[in-house]
């Protein structure tokens, strides 16, 4: 009897895994199949055609995504790592407890709420949608992920390593920057990369910050297109050609994100 139960439970578990893996396969196969059919050179080089016309591409959205994601990373990384250092190295008092809690809260805040927040503090005063607003929203979304990954990584560095460096006569700030951060570098980097992969696919916060743009712009105070938003608007449109383009865009976005994820896993995780 005991042995039958044993067999039964583990069969169920294996089946669950098969199920989840087949769903993944299904999704990926769909995206890839549709994407490969839809993708072409125009997609990367041309601007969208006006409504109703077939053809054209998404170069505006691709460039927009790259600009905003880069900007977001540049804003959030120094802040996040600095704050994470405070939390892990000096974080014993009331402030640290609060901040740690708030970071957790921030991580749980739906991204669309962040979008609204940025809308109220940037778009409303500027009176227009802009790339900078979009980047800011993405940066705020990135912050908690990076802070938590960094703090965790720093915390994992054994206290004795700090003390060992101190005992060699090093001042604390050098210990932190040279030894502690160095020891935690691979986890920090992988945290940052994963956060970038995540914001690259964010749609909701961009809907009313960067909005979108049919044209290729590089100035930051104008509305700017982005891949996810473009996918969304094409997907809910009634035009088949736009559906086709949406598949192509999804395909490229998913490839980019999966590549980051896989490389993080294979280059950083295996080392540990």
């Amino acid at each position, binding site marked *: 009897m005991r042995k039958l139960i044993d067999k039964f439970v583990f069969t169920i578990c294996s089946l669950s895994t098969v199920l989840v893996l087949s769903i993944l396969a299904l999704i990926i196969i769909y995206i890839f199949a549709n994407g490969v059919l839809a993708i072409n050179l125009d997609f990367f080089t041309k601007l969208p055609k006006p409504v109703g016309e077939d053809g054209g591409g998404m170069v505006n959205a691709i460039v927009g995504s790259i600009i905003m994601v880069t900007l977001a990373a540049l804003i959030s990384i120094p802040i996040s790592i600095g704050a994470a250092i405070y939390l892990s*190295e000096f974080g014993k008092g009331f402030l640290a407890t609060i901040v740690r809690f708030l970071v957790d809260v921030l991580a749980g*805040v739906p991204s669309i709420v962040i979008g609204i927040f940025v809308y109220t503090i940037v778009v409303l005063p500027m009176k227009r949608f802009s790339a900078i607003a979009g980047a800011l929203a993405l940066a705020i979304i990135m912050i908690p992920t990076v802070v938590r990954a960094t703090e965790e990584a720093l915390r994992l560095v054994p206290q004795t390593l700090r003390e060992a460096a101190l005992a060699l006569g090093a001042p604390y700030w050098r210990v932190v920057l040279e030894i502690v951060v160095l020891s935690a570098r691979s986890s920090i980097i992988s945290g940052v990369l994963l956060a970038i992969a995540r914001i690259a696919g964010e749609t909701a916060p961009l809907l009313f910050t960067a909005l979108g743009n049919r044209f290729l712009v590089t100035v930051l105070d104008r509305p700017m297109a982005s891949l996810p938003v473009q996918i969304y608007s094409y997907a809910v449109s009634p035009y088949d050609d736009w559906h086709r383009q949406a598949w192509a865009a999804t395909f490229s976005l998913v490839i980019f994100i999966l590549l980051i994820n896989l490389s993080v896993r294979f280059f950083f995780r295996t080392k540990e």
Partner: protein
Amino acid sequence: MENLQEATKTDNLILAPRKKRWLMSPSADKAFHTLTKSLALFLFTLVIALVASMIYNSRLSLSRFGLSFVFSSTWDPVKELFGALPFVYGTLVSSITALIIAIPISLGVAIFLTEECPYKLRPIVLTLVELLAAIPSVAYGLWGIFVLVPFMRNYINPVLEKGLGFLPLFKGPSYGIGLLTSGMILAVMIVPIITAISVNSLNSVLPSQREAALALGATRWEATQIVLLNARSGIIGGIILGLGRALGETMAVTMVIGNRPEISLSLLAPSYTMASVIANEFTEATYDLYLHALIEIAILLFIITFIVQAFAQLLIRQISKGKKS
């Protein structure tokens, strides 16, 4: 070198250290402390600003409807009547549906991964499962629209209607879109979260716990129960995190839930969530009250996720405290 050793031995060195760069001095350490602290403070301000700014920008709606905003089920921008109840309902029901589907599957996968899976395959399977979480929600939405919705409409929902239609939960008619479909999409999205965290907590249980149970004559499943018992706090934390993610998920849900502000007991009926109403109507909000009402919904969403989050924190902390003492 010997000179140096000699020099450092002279006793007054402690009291009068060598002339040193500022960078080696205690004030450099102070400056460093201050810098990182101000960054932390910035995060603090950011969250405060988030709340404050949203409250300010929903003032019209807040003052106009007060508490009734939450309990009213009328959402009629034309008549300037705004009630959030359908969205709250849609959000909660779709998320809970997702949890009910995702929890057993996630645990099954986690147990398979930690107990059964050949060692070499483990990282591969785990990576694959986690990839599900990396796929952007808009991609899920796209897939949902073009694959899942037709599939549900043509195969699953008719069966449910026939078999379980006597329950209000599965009353027709069904269009493919609706609570159940979005719940399923959400389930797929949160399975990797719950699985990853569960696997993590299961793996952090010392192998000797399992071996200790085996050594007492336990079968493998009995030993696994002991492992699960050890990992329970992490697993619960993972489940709640999954819930948080489901509550706030916007794009995928927006694309498959049907976007109809009605409360229906049936899982097969179209519905609307807080996130999707904001996503759909924000840019269409033509007058300030409308806008403010949408922002108020954002506040509501924020509060709900905040409560879930805080609950998760408390729970995890309590369990880990009990473990320590």
